[in-house]
């Protein structure tokens, strides 16, 4: 049991693909020999069986690009809200954030807020406008009145960078978790995950992916609620009692519930905050969800439902982390000889489930964790495949000479290719600390995708030239700053001191992108630029009011100028 728990934690420590792990501060224990968790296997196989049935049914209904990319655009607000929540709530949200609170105490509340606070911003600025202007991907929006080829080429670089960063971290974690559950070699486990996600996406497209996300979100919410309720019952559901107990039990003493254990620098905190606020609004696999509903109004409903589920889950996970401080204290079976939690702090929720519910609860929570990973990688894979087929092939290569059947074939082939690449990356990065990828993906999403979306929607002066220059500068600067930060320059490359002194680049890279895009656009006096500025009015009307009489707006990928 202890060996399995060690392995689970070590694995989960690399599933840190979202904001909760952006600092990469949690400790990873050495992966022990695999031990089979039979109950977890049973629950997990039930989940896989159900999802394969869904994929089979969805495959029969997926014959057009509308169905493959957007599930026909017929999801309800509630369904899509659950799917968005499923896409957002990764294993790192559950295990990583609770581990963060367990280790650093009160500062974990910032990550809880961070996961929830972007949704109002998405609602106010993006959701229905993105839906009204686009068809399959967020690049439909930016390229609406700008040059399609240039914009989609740039967008593909940034979008695929984000997706592969996320995907690698998930694959590493998922492979290791499967290794423990089934006793398989790591590389076999990674291949298994890659094959599963490829099947879901290539056959079932967005319809299968959406329903898998919905089911996963439901079981994650139920699992988290169960664990949280059992934990809180030990404190008579009293926050005061929980806080007093944590102070007494934590090695940090009173300091565990004082700020400053994790976030010490206001510049770093603002940078992290900006990544939280605007990063999710630039994630390709999240934005893609807005095209699965029939209109802008339903897109807004989706955001409302998603914010409700995510907010609830964040509070539950925060309380689980707080409860773990007390309940795990003194339980020597979960601590190593060095006094640290076996396998690292990410293990807190799993240890807690074992403590409160024995092997059955541990098995259920483990299976829920793995289901979460599978669902997230499926969503990321679909987003990557759509970038290849819709943005690169249909627009850049085919220049709008669309053949629907060929495009779907390209999508399916791209899915398999993404699966192969993801497997390769998962094997390559097995021993690496991949937590920095979380920082980088949110930073790129906020700095490049969100910035350019924002400018294209709200500023008539944006031109193709400004977009390309701004996006390129944002992409290069954010990647460079993270590579020069401690997470990569010191921790991975072994240098003595970081060149870039902050863990998060967003406070610098986001304004830089905006500045370059604005200045270059203003200096652009070309005839194309004049036409692009003149076309803003039409874009404004459609973004605000939708395309009259159209359920799914038409965005001709061959359109390079808009009158």
């Amino acid at each position, binding site marked *: 049991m202890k060996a399995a728990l060690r392995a689970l934690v070590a694995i989960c420590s690399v599933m840190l693909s979202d904001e909760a792990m952006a600092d990469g501060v949690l400790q990873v224990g050495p992966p022990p020999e695999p031990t089979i968790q039979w109950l977890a296997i049973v629950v997990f196989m039930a989940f896989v069986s159900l999802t394969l049935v869904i994929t089979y049914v969805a495959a029969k209904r997926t014959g057009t690009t509308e169905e493959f990319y957007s599930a026909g655009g017929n999801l309800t607000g509630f369904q899509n809200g659950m799917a968005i929540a499923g896409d957002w709530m990764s294993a790192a949200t559950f295990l990583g954030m609770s581990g963060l609170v367990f280790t650093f105490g009160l500062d974990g509340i910032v990550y809880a807020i961070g996961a929830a606070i972007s*949704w109002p911003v998405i609602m106010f600025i993006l959701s229905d406008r993105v839906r009204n202007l686009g068809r399959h991907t967020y690049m439909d929006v930016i390229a609406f009145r700008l040059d399609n080829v240039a914009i989609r080429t740039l967008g593909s670089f940034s979008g695929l960078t984000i997706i592969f960063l996320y995907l690698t971290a998930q694959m590493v974690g998922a492979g290791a978790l499967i290794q423990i559950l089934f006793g398989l070699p790591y590389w076999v486990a990674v291949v298994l995950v890659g094959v599963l996600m490829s099947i879901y996406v290539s056959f079932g497209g967005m319809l299968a992916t959406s329903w898998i996300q919905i089911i996963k979100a439901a079981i994650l919410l139920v699992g988290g609620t169960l664990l949280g309720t059992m934990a809180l019952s030990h404190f008579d559901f009293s926050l005061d009692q929980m806080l007093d107990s944590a102070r007494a039990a934590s090695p940090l003493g009173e300091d565990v519930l004082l700020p400053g254990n994790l976030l010490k620098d206001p510049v770093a905190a603002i940078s992290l905050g900006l990544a939280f606020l605007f990063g999710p609004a630039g994630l390709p696999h999240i934005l893609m969800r807005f095209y699965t509903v029939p209109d802008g109004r339903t897109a807004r409903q989706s955001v409302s439902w998603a914010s409700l589920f995510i907010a609830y889950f964040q509070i539950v996970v925060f309380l689980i982390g707080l409860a773990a401080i007390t309940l795990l204290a003194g339980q020597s079976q979960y601590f190593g000889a060095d006094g640290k939690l076996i396998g690292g702090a990410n293990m807190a929720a799993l240890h807690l489930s074992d403590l409160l519910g024995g092997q059955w609860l541990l098995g259920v929570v483990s299976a829920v964790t793995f289901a979460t990973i599978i669902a997230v990688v499926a969503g990321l894979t679909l987003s990557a495949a759509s970038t290849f087929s819709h943005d690169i092939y249909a627009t850049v290569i085919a220049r709008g000479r669309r053949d629907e059947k060929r495009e779907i074939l390209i999508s399916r082939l791209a899915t398999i290719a993404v699966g192969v690449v993801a497997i390769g990356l998962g094997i390559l990065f097995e021993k690496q600390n991949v937590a920095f990828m979380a920082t980088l993906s949110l930073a790129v999403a906020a700095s490049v995708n969100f910035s350019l979306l924002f400018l294209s929607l709200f500023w008539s002066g944006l031109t193709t030239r400004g977009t390309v220059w701004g996006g390129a500068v944002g992409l290069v600067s954010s990647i460079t700053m993270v590579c020069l930060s401690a997470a990569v320059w010191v921790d991975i490359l072994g240098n003595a001191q970081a060149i870039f002194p902050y863990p998060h680049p967003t406070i610098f890279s986001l304004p830089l992108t905006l500045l370059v895009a604005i200045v270059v656009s203003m200096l652009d006096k070309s005839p194309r630029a004049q036409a692009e500025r003149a076309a803003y009015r039409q874009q404004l009307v459609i973004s605000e009011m939708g395309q009259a009489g159209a359920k799914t707006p038409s965005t001709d990928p061959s359109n390079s100028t808009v009158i």
Partner: protein
Amino acid sequence: MPDRDYFNSEKSGGLVVRRRVDALLTALTTALFLAPLCLIIVHPDAFSTKAIIGWGFALILYSVCSTWLYQWWISNVERRGGLK
């Protein structure tokens, strides 16, 4: 092509107002998150544990309530303008 008057009129449901509200709410959301965060980091002794947790939970609650209220409001705007 609708002109500026159209966007101010009842037909559009006052969409110009909506864009201004959007900007205001986005700025408000950003300030509600970043300003207290900076204060807490710069003056950690000035805030009790319960106050910080209360701020956190209130902000999470705000994220939910704001999306639902905003959706209700904009739906009414669209309905008045005959856009639904």
